[in-house]
Structures are given as C-alpha cells and as structure tokens.
C-alpha cells in the first residue's frame, strides 16, 4: 500500500506539470489582458513601465517558469516563514495579484475560511442527510419513503441552486423572516448571541447546497445498498440468525459504503472550489466569488493559481479515494 501511494505520488508530478502548463497557457491566451485594464489616457511610456513592473513584457515561457518557481518554491517557503517565524523567503518575489497588488496566497488565505465554513458544512449536511435516506430507501424499496426520496433527489438534481436558493430566500427570509437574506462575512462569533446569528445566516446557503449534494449521494447510497442487499451473503447472515439491524448495518452497509466513500472523497475538492453561484447569491465572500472577481478583472495570476490549486486537490483526492478503496475492500490489493 505504501509503495503504491508513493508510486502514485511520483506519477502525480508529471500529471500536475502538464496541467499547470495547460492552465497557464490557456489563461494567458484567453482574450483580455492586464494591459486592457489601464486607462487609455495613460501615456505610452508610463504604460510600458507599468507592464514592466508587472512582469508582463517578458515572453510567456519565462513567465510560466517564474510562476512555477514562485508556486512550488517561494510560496511554500513563505508558508514556513509564517508558521515558524523564520525568514527563508525574504526578498523573494511572490505571486502578486494584478487587482489588489497583494500576494495571491494571502488573498486565498482570507477567503478560504468562509468557503470551508459554509460549503464544507453544506457538504457535511448533505452527506448526513443522504446516507440515512439512501439506506432506508433501499431497505424499503418502492415504499412511499423511497418514492419521496426519489422525488427529493430528482428535485435536487434538476433544480439549479440559483432557483432553489432564491426560492428559499423568498420563503424563509422574505415571507417568514426566519433567516437573513445575506451572509455577513464580518460577523465574529464571540458569544452565544453571535453564534446563533452565525448559525442563522449559514442555514439558507447550507440547505441550498446541502440538498443538491444530498440528491446525488443518496442515489449512490441507495443503488449501492440495493446491489448488496440482493447478494447471497446477506441471506447467509439472515440464516445465521442475525438481527435485521446487524444484517443491514453491518453486512450490507459496510459493503455498500465502499463505492459511496470514494464518491464522497471525490466530491471534497469541490468544497474548496467553492460554489460560485451560491456564494454570489448569498453574498458569502469565499473562494468562488474571488475566482469570479479575478476573471472579471483579468487578474491572470489569481486565476491561474486558483485553477492550479483545484487541480492539485482533485489529483490528491483521487489518490485518497483509491487508497481508501484499498483499505475498505480486502479484495483489492495494490502491490
């Protein structure tokens, strides 16, 4: 297992390099450049100086290699400095956002807690709703509960979050007035009252996203349970005289969780990616809205860095899912 993991990690390096190349050049080739953001009234020589200070007058391969160096060398060193108070990275050029003129990673560091808090909770809530629904739907296949679960999943699949989110706002904020319409990023939890407020403002975005997540996962859970429910070993367990609870929760569920766990693990990178629509709808100042802002403002380093971070997370969680599969299923050996 360890050699397998190491081998996969080594294989990830060329994969990621290729991805970084594609991302960098694709973003660079896209229409719109930082030069277009400079007003036309600026004289040409000043304009040239601005571009030079941003490092855009260099050929594209030089910029790519510089960005790689910054991403893999300078930024980790900065991270170490920030953690341990050392000064390895002094005087080195970090990845700078065109928009804010500040380091891209500090910006990400500011945005990521909001995203993790809201989107992460939504994912967790989605899983917690989906797994029991999936189990019970499969156990009582074609019962009214199963039909209701199917309907709910269908709604979760087919109704986009900008619609369901707006609907929730209209019902619960405008008509009933239970929850605020907007998420207040500046709220700091210090006491019980502010904690309640935080929970309240998180409820709507979490439910919007949670339902969408739950729809997919509950379907996976249900079909996986159904598949295992019909297996002979379940009949063996019943013949052994196991209680129904043991049969379902020990024999069937454990075997059914194998594919579901990998689906859940593969979905985790999307948490970091944020939910662009939902974040914008509720005004959650997270990674998703940062990415949208960067795209609008032709902030190439920001877009490139964010896209590449997502790529790394996806590769990483793919590996985690595969390793989990090996750990959960004794029939799979990675040697």
């Amino acid at each position, binding site marked *: 297992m360890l050699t397998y993991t190491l081998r996969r990690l080594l294989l990830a390096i060329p994969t990621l390099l290729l991805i970084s190349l594609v991302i960098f050049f694709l973003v660079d080739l896209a229409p719109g450049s930082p030069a277009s953001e400079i007003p036309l009234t600026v004289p040409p020589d000043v304009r040239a100086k601005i571009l030079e200070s941003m490092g855009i007058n260099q050929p594209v391969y030089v910029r790519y290699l510089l960005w790689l160096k910054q991403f893999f060398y300078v930024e980790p060193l900065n991270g170490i400095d920030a953690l341990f108070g050392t000064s390895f990275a002094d005087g080195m050029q970090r990845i700078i956002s065109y928009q804010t003129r500040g380091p891209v990673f500090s910006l990400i560091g500011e945005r990521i807690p909001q995203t993790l808090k809201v989107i992460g909770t939504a994912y967790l809530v989605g899983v917690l709703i989906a797994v029991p629904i999936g189990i019970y739907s499969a156990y009582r296949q074609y019962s009214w509960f199963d039909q209701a679960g199917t309907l709910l999943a269908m709604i979760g699949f087919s109704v986009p979050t900008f619609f369901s989110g707006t609907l929730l706002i209209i019902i619960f904020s405008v008509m009933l007035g239970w929850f605020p319409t907007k998420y207040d990023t500046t709220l700091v939890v210090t006491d019980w009252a502010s904690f309640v407020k935080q929970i309240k403002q998180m409820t709507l975005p979490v439910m919007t996203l949670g339902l969408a997540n739950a729809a997919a996962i509950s379907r996976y859970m249900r079909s996986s349970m159904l598949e295992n429910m019909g*297996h*002979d*070993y379940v*009949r*063996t*367990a*019943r*013949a*052994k*005289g*196991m*209680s*129904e609870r*043991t049969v379902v929760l020990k*024999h069937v569920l*454990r*075997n059914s969780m194998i594919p579901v766990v990998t689906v859940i693990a593969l979905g985790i990178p999307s948490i970091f990616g944020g939910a662009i629509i939902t974040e914008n709808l509720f005004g959650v100042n997270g990674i998703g809205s940062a990415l949208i802002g960067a795209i609008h403002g032709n902030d190439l380093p920001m877009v490139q860095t964010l896209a590449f971070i997502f790529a790394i997370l996806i590769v990483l969680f793919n590996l985690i899912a595969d390793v989990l599969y090996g750990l*959960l*299923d*004794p*029939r799979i050996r990675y040697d």
Partner: protein
Amino acid sequence: MLDASPQTLVRVDGLKMYFPIYSGILRRHTGDVKAVDGVSFDIQQGETLGLVGESGCGKSTVGRALLRLYEPTAGSVVIEGEDIATLSPEALRKKRPTMQMVFQDPQASLNPRMTLANIISEPLVEHTNWSPERRLERVYELMDAVGLNRRFANRFPHEFSGGQRQRIGIARALALNPKFIVCDEPIAALDVSIQAQVVNLLEDLQEKLGLTYLFISHDLSMVRHIADRVAVMYLGRIAELSPRDALFANPLHPYAEALLSAVNEPDPSLARRQRIILKGDVPSPARPPKGCNFCTRCPKAFARCHAEKPELQEVEPGRHVACFLYTPETGDAKAGPTGVPEANEHLQQGETK
C-alpha cells in the same frame, strides 16, 4: 438409517410460495408466480432427503421457504414441534441455531469483507455469550472438522479456492450445532473433483453429528449417492417421493421416469440408452396448466389429467406419487383411465394452515 431413527424432525404441510406479479400503470397485483404450490413431506431424524428436479422447478425456493428466508404464502413447516412459518421474528431468530443452510455459491454467500474467523464466529457472538477465546477455540474446532488449516483463520474469502470456500460455508452452518441443514445445491458450483470431497465431508459430518439433511440438487448421481429418500419436483409440486433404491430401480411417476432415464450408466455393457425425451417446454409457473402440472408433456396423459390436479398419495409402502395412473388400492398396477376420482382434495390441503 431410516429405520434406526423413525422420529420426524421436519414436517412440511401444504407449503406454498407465491411471488406476486405487479403490472400495468397502477402496478396492480395481476397474478402470482407459483414457485412452490402445495408441497408436503416429512424428514426423519438423521435422514437425508434428496430434492431433485430441473432448473426453475422450485427446489431452492422450497429450501429457502423451509428456513423462512422467504415468507411462505401458505402452509406450515414444523421443525421440532414449532411452526417456523408462523413464528414471530424474535422467536425465529432464537430458532435459527437448530436449522442452517449451505448455499449454492460459496463465493457469493460469504461476506467479502469479513475474515474466515469472523464469518464462522458471528453466529456465536449473536447466539451465545462465550468469551472471545472460547469462540476462537470453537472456530478452530470447526475448521478442523471441515479440513481447513488453522492458519487460514484470518484470511478473507477471496483468498480461498471454491472447494475451500464451500468448506467455510459448511463450517459456518455447523457453528451452532444445528440439527437440520438445508444443502441448497452445495456442489453445483464446484469442480467435479471437489464435489466428491464436499459430499463425503457432508456424509462424515452427518455420521459424526447426527445431522439431518435436505439435499437439493439437480445432480441425480450425487443424490443417488447421498440421499435416503428422494423427492422429485416438477413445476412447484412434488411428483414422486420414494426411497432412493426403489425410485432409481423403478420410478413410478412418468416425470420421474423421464428424469431418471437421463442418468448415465457408468458401465457401458449395462448401458440402456432408451431415454425418454419429453416434448415441449416447462410451462410458466405463473400460468400452470389446469390439470396435472405435467399433463402438457406427459406421454401417458389422459382426459382426467387435464381436468384435475393429482394429489401426492402413498401407493406402495413408503412410496408417494402424485399421478392418476396410480391409486392407493391398486398398488403399482396401472389403474389406467378408470382411476377413482378424488376431486379437489388439493384445495383442502392447500388451505391447511
């Protein structure tokens, strides 16, 4: 063995297992697949009853309904004085240790995520309050009994060969000292070389532990080897139930006759190749023919066969046949088309609870 222990362990009466068919937009109940349609038999203590028949005739369904792995539609299954078919779920669970099953597919019937020791000891966890050491001791004991090396205790099912897996299945079934074991085609998924090993193991265990078997199989020569009495099933009903030697020497029911004519004779000089080839296909169990289930293919069918269902009745000592060609009075002499009509006895028996 039949004479040695005449005590009845299992008594099945009018067992029916219907699987409902739902069709149409409203998914209305439009019919039933009559997988088992009124089956009655007894099994004596220490006896092996063979249950044979072609694919889809309801053999396995009988086995499963017997242990209530299916909920029988009607009928009773009395094992040691308790009616399995009507026990409450909790009482049924308590009863499970006395009756066990060896399944057809040893690969699929073992949980792939449990080690051998876990598989065998799980019933002990559920039904006894033994310490882990005692349970492990029992697991080793069982592994010895079925001829598995003790070193294998922590392996997973996929690491074994088919024959070894079936031994695990048998060891698992034996864990709680059952009295009655349903062997549902235990050798069908195994190589011929392994089949003999497993059957011999089953016989040895029967001798040592005094087990009672219901041996379901479509392998007639294997049934001839292991069974004391044999029931021949056709389309959800028992056609003939006779002692093994009598049945193989002189099958009474036309279907049993046709079925047994397919058994190969190992000695070429004795080989009598007069096979009875049945015409047509088995009717659908969802729409069985009006009279005798076998009347559509029976070479000896006459008018009455198409009108009423014959009941299983004793025509000679120990021999039960469901056919109008035989009547209890006339013994094995062919009564012919003038047999005494016994209309609708089947209905009354079917509704016995």
